[in-house]
């Protein structure tokens, strides 16, 4: 009992506790009545099938990964037993009426559903912040820096917008990549593998980070010298890492195979830069992507070289760079960043959350990265607000409170959607192109800087 009291006291007296309370209150305000009105309908449909014991992939009810369902399943099951219903909301008439002019496809859900959906996001968001705090503590001698960087993460408007306004689950991916990298830094390779595997169950991108990292683990310090003893040590480390990844993936093998097939058949054959409005930079103005569509097969062929590109870069790092434990952090960020340029899937601003936690941590050793974190966050945030205007997230607020009338909301959204642009047909296309372009430049600059710091050769460091 005394230990529990002591633990409780330590938590309360921690330098982060008051900020965490403020942050949680802020999140509690954002959670119930704000959501991106498109994806949440698909989340609900997929969950309805899942809670009914049906395979959502078989019925093509969803293309969301298995981890999302297995993670939310206990929560929604318990809620169901307490009388929570997943049925469509009772205000169906109001919804139909408000969407009658076709301004937006409105798939509304109950605010309680939104809160339950966002609870796991809250847990992972908080865990990410705390992990940043402890990771920075290990990397930096500055005693104030861990708290500062925790605050940068915890109160960043973009990260708040992704999880609590949009309701996207990319925080799972960001957390697992960061935790996996932390374990690599700490030489806990099995746990690192488990984390990258769990991340892959949340979205396929972490596997594209883990594969080149595994090559680095295998060939680090042996290329050129052909040191057999060192290679044996590396092989042991490599196998631990790969076993960790494999164990996570095997855990959900049946559904994960189906999900992977669906992704391969459905998503990977679509080029990333065709698609709807919710795209990053290139497709902001569909008219401008004509030339891209004419060369779709060429661009897709380029994507297929991603494994080869990664292999070559990984081997070059092994040959020329001094891979200190700190450098594995840079390498993880580099390959996460590379995914944005190569993956043949739709690129959306919320995907920035995969790399942002790494950038915050890296900024503790290279301050420039905090600027890049700010640039990417700002670009992503304003891109979000430009897609269909900031009011697009307010549908639950209009449906379930009297603060804002649905008709007024639809009118305001329509006005924004039809506002003429300066160099595109519509203002929204202008804004998306500008902010998408800034984000794109931010990612390019991140790549260049990461290469610069990774490419410090043995001689340079010794010099």
């Amino acid at each position, binding site marked *: 009992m005394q230990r529990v009291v002591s633990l409780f006291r330590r938590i309360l007296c921690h330098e982060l506790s008051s900020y965490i309370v403020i942050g949680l209150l802020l999140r509690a305000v954002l959670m119930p009545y704000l959501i991106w009105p498109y994806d949440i309908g698909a989340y609900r449909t997929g969950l*309805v099938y899942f809670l*009914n014991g049906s395979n959502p992939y078989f019925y093509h009810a969803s293309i969301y990964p298995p981890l999302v369902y297995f*993670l939310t399943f*206990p929560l929604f099951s318990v809620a169901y037993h307490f009388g929570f219903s997943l049925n469509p909301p009772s205000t169906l008439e109001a919804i139909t009426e408000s969407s009658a002019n076709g301004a937006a496809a409105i798939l509304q859900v109950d605010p309680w559903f939104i809160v339950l959906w966002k609870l796991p996001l809250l847990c992972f968001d908080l865990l990410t912040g705390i992990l940043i705090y402890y990771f920075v503590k290990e990397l930096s001698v500055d005693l104030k820096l861990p708290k500062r960087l925790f605050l940068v993460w915890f109160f960043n408007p973009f990260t708040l917008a992704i999880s609590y306004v949009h309701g996207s689950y990319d925080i799972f991916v960001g957390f697992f990549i960061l935790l996996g990298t932390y*374990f690599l830094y700490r030489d806990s390779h099995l746990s690192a593998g488990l984390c990258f595997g769990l991340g892959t169950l949340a979205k396929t991108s972490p596997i594209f980070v883990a594969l080149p990292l595994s090559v680095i683990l295998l060939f680090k310090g042996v290329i050129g010298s052909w040191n057999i003893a060192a290679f044996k040590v590396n092989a042991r480390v490599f196998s631990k890492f790969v076993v960790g990844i494999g164990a996570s993936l095997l855990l*959900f093998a049946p559904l994960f195979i189906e999900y992977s097939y669906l992704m391969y058949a459905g998503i990977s054959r679509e080029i990333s830069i*065709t698609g709807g409005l919710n795209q990053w930079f290139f497709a902001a103005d569909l008219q401008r992507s004509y030339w891209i569509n004419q060369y779709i097969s060429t661009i897709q062929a380029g994507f297929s070289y991603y494994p080869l590109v990664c292999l070559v870069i990984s081997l070059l790092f092994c040959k020329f760079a001094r891979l200190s434990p700190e450098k594995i952090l840079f390498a993880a960020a580099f390959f996460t960043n590379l995914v944005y340029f190569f993956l043949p899937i739709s690129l959306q601003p919320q995907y920035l959350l995969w790399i942002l936690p790494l950038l915050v941590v890296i900024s503790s050793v290279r301050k420039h990265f905090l600027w890049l974190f700010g640039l990417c966050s700002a670009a992503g945030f304003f891109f979000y607000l430009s897609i269909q205007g900031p009011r697009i997230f307010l549908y639950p607020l209009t449906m379930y409170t009297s603060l804002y009338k649905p008709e007024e909301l639809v009118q305001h959204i329509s006005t924004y959607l039809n506002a003429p642009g300066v160099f595109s047909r519509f203002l929204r296309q202008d804004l998306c192109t500008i902010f998408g372009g800034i984000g794109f430049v931010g990612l390019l600059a991140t790549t260049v800087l990461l290469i610069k710091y990774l490419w410090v050769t043995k001689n340079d460091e010794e010099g």
Partner: protein
Amino acid sequence: MTKRDKWLYVPAAILILLLVSELTWYAPYTRPRTGSFSILDVIKQPEGTGTNITIVYQLNASLPLDASIVITPVRTTPQDLPVYVFYDVAYPTVGTDWILSAMLQAHLKAELTMRGYNATVKLVSAEELETILLSKELAIVIMASGAFPSSILSKDVNLIKPWVDSGGYLFGLAFT
């Protein structure tokens, strides 16, 4: 002895949670009955009394389900015919955009593949379309641009009717 890193418990805890969730989901006694659809009987009216067919079916579902049952006569069952989506920026569109035709092809290709339909799904120009129609190739053509090119259908030319008569399938979208 080094102090054990507390973060090691995090993936372990998540794995345990997921494993419990998975076992519960797969456990047969916790799973509700899934939906099913079956045709019990097909009763044809006797010869000479008309063309009525009565179909007896059974639909069971515990899901929140909104089902529409469509029964349609089928003369033949086409197997994986090639699908051609007309796309030629040299021609104008009516009430739509070429980019939408290209997107339709991309999505259709993916959706059909997922459902086990493995034939070609490709974009074709006006010239290629003309060749397909003239050769009477058995295929599915989708015209999503709202208009036909004059080399295919105009006051003087009609390549569509002979091709459809020979068994081709034409889908027109965006026509007003």
